[in-house]
């Protein structure tokens, strides 16, 4: 217990990172409940998806998924750059990720409204849980996009320890959203089985 009143040595992860982890835990549980409900309803219906509803598309979603996953790399690089205080690099990687993510989100919204024309959310239990799950996932992508926009805005006025922590936390959020999206697609596509 020596005099470390002035110590600024940094061990372990900042509270901000842990806070983000908590948010992720809470949101993942929400998705867990949606997914549980999905299968609960599925077990109760003889045909899934019900007659008259097309099986969920396979190819396009997988391609989109791949696109979204690629953005994990720049996010990771951004976090690393921030940790070592390389401002320009951080901005670059964030911007790169943001472009791809926005593109992904834009297409998904378009695709979502397309499907709604096919079969409406008020059609039956399948359509209800299908759109709820998909919509919730898209909403989380949107939140991530907003995070990145906000962070880039912040970084225009340089680094502070606070912003470095924010970068780490938001990167963590994106890893989680990517995993979440994989799981959600997995569940929705399982209707083909």
């Amino acid at each position, binding site marked *: 217990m020596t005099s470390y009143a002035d110590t600024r040595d940094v061990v372990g992860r900042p509270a901000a990172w842990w806070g983000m982890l908590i948010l992720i835990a809470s949101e993942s549980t929400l998705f867990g409940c949606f997914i549980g409900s999905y*299968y*609960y309803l*599925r*077990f*109760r*219906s*003889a045909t*899934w998806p019900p007659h008259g509803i097309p099986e969920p598309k396979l190819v396009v979603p997988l391609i989109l998924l791949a696109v979204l996953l690629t953005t994990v790399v720049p996010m990771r690089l951004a976090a690393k750059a921030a940790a070592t205080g390389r401002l320009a690099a951080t901005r670059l990687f964030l911007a790169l990720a943001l472009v791809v993510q926005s593109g992904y989100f834009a297409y998904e919204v378009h695709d979502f409204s397309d499907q709604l024309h096919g079969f409406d959310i008020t059609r039956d239990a399948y359509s209800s849980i299908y759109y709820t799950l998909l919509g919730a996932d898209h909403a989380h992508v949107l939140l991530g996009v907003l995070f990145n926009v906000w962070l880039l805005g912040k970084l225009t006025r340089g680094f502070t320890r606070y912003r470095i922590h924010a970068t780490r936390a938001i990167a963590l959020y994106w890893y989680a959203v990517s995993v979440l999206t994989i799981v959600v697609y997995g569940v929705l596509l399982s209707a083909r089985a």
Partner: protein
Amino acid sequence: MTLRRLEILQWTGLLLGGLAFAAAHVVGYGITEAECNSAGLRWGISNDTWEVIALGVTAGLVVVSGLAAATVVVRTRETSYESPPPPGRVRFLAIAALAANLIFLIIIVLDALGSIVNVACRQG
């Protein structure tokens, strides 16, 4: 035994059993849900077989986890659970894990008894 190894055993003891139990609980319930509803007619799975498999595996994991905790408790009997970390904390959490795994194991056993003795899908 090195502290590092004790650490690993202690965390195994603390986490493995709990996770295994949680998984088995959800899966075990899910199996019955699936079999005893219209979907199950299509899949035609046998409740007892699946339950016994799931619960057997889990019981194994819980036992492993319990043994890990027990090892740590034995190996650290010289230290007190109130002594400074890491050793004190390792012993502390190992003692806790031992109790936890015992409880998980009993639940798994009772689950198994229940799903074997009772007729699957008979409304209770």
